[in-house]
């Protein structure tokens, strides 16, 4: 064996293992207002593709709101489900990347996209059961003065690059840095991603799953949580809550 070994970057977590960062989305609270979608695009320099490209299915969102109609007319109601990258512990996108551009962060238990490694094969997006990944089909223009609102802490992606929700890794890193400077652990609510910060209904809760006392851990244990497509065994870090007290909105 030579000294150049292929590193073990394809993470494979056991279901019992608790990831570090987790998110809870309360579908009983979500009103589908799209504030998270807008906040995410602003925070992460997500491009606006325009009407024509969106028509070709090339729209770029790191988080999207899915809408479901429930019940029969006239007793009908809607429910909304914001879907972003589920930061799977056993991610289908990871083993298919030929260049290790999508790989697992062992330290943060996040699924990462390394933009400058990505060669745009789009295997990862095709293998993602949540359709959470978006592809830069073109270099989309940001005419002046729109370029002034770019977030300097996030890479501006070029054409031919795959991208997806990062759980606002730049905010996590900032919170970790601040905590390390003060010699303490990251506190609840300190590393909130843009979507959680913007949510007016407080339906998105973010925090540490390895801390049993964090808000997000308590919500995960609340008993009304489901994971999306749990049967696939992807071990998502995002939990959806539904069916709480007073849920029957048709009644």
């Amino acid at each position, binding site marked *: 064996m030579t000294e150049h070994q292929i590193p073990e970057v394809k993470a494979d977590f056991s279901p019992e293992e608790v990831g570090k960062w987790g998110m809870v989305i309360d579908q009983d609270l979500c009103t589908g207002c799209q504030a998270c979608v807008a906040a995410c695009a602003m925070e992460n320099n997500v491009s606006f593709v325009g009407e024509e490209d969106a028509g070709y299915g090339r729209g770029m969102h790191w988080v999207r709101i899915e809408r479901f109609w429930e019940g029969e007319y006239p007793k009908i109601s809607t429910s909304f489900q914001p879907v972003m990258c589920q930061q799977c512990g056993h991610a289908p996108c990871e083993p298919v990347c030929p260049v290790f551009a999508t*790989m697992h*962060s*062992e*330290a*943060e238990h*996040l699924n*990462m996209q*390394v*933009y*400058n490694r990505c060669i745009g094969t789009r295997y990862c997006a095709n293998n993602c059961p949540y359709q959470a990944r978006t592809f830069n089909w073109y270099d989309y223009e940001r005419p002046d003065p729109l370029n002034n609102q770019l977030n*300097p*802490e*996030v*890479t*501006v992606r070029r054409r031919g690059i795959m991208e997806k929700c*990062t759980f606002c*890794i*730049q905010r996590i*890193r900032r919170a970790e*840095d601040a905590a*390390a*400077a003060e010699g303490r652990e990251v506190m609840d609510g300190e590393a909130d991603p843009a979507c959680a910060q913007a949510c007016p209904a407080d339906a998105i809760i973010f925090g540490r799953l390895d801390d049993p006392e964090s808000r997000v851990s308590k919500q995960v244990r609340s008993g009304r949580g489901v994971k999306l497509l749990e049967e696939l065994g992807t071990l998502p870090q995002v939990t959806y809550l539904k069916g709480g007290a007073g849920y029957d909105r048709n009644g």
Partner: protein
Amino acid sequence: MGAKIVNFLKQPMVRAVLAIAVLALVGGAAWGAYQTQRLPQQPIEFRHNLHIGLGVQCLYCHPGAWQGQSAGLPTQSKCWGCHQQIDRQTPELDKLAQYVEDGVSIPWVPVALMPDFVYFSHRPHIAAGVNCETCHGDLSKMTVAEPQKGMDMGWCLKCHKELAPEKETKLIDCATCHQ
């Protein structure tokens, strides 16, 4: 066919034109290489060696390295804090006085730049006891700051692996530096 080409190349005019073309290419390449290696023109020929020799600490003028991401480049008022009490011995200090009079920040040109896909913060490095000269070179031997060669990912990882093996999972994780 081959002989025809050789004969064509033997004509004096053709030789002269070829020689000029080769010279232009080599010259252009050399000029391009020089442009990339040349130090950027700083607004003031600041002498790091003199200030370090006088015992000024790096963190006195670049205090950001102590607290956060960017080390920061000193404003005219920072310089003036000391220099208003010192005789203006060189024309460079007249430039400083002009910036102070106009109330304009000195437009320093940063030389140690990271690509936009890299997150770098000075604070954890200083906290881990890494000295400025480890990355920025021995500034006591420079006037204006010179960019250091070979500040690439392999160079980062070399330190990250060797200096703190117990923290390796965190230190060699992609998420630690890439955004």
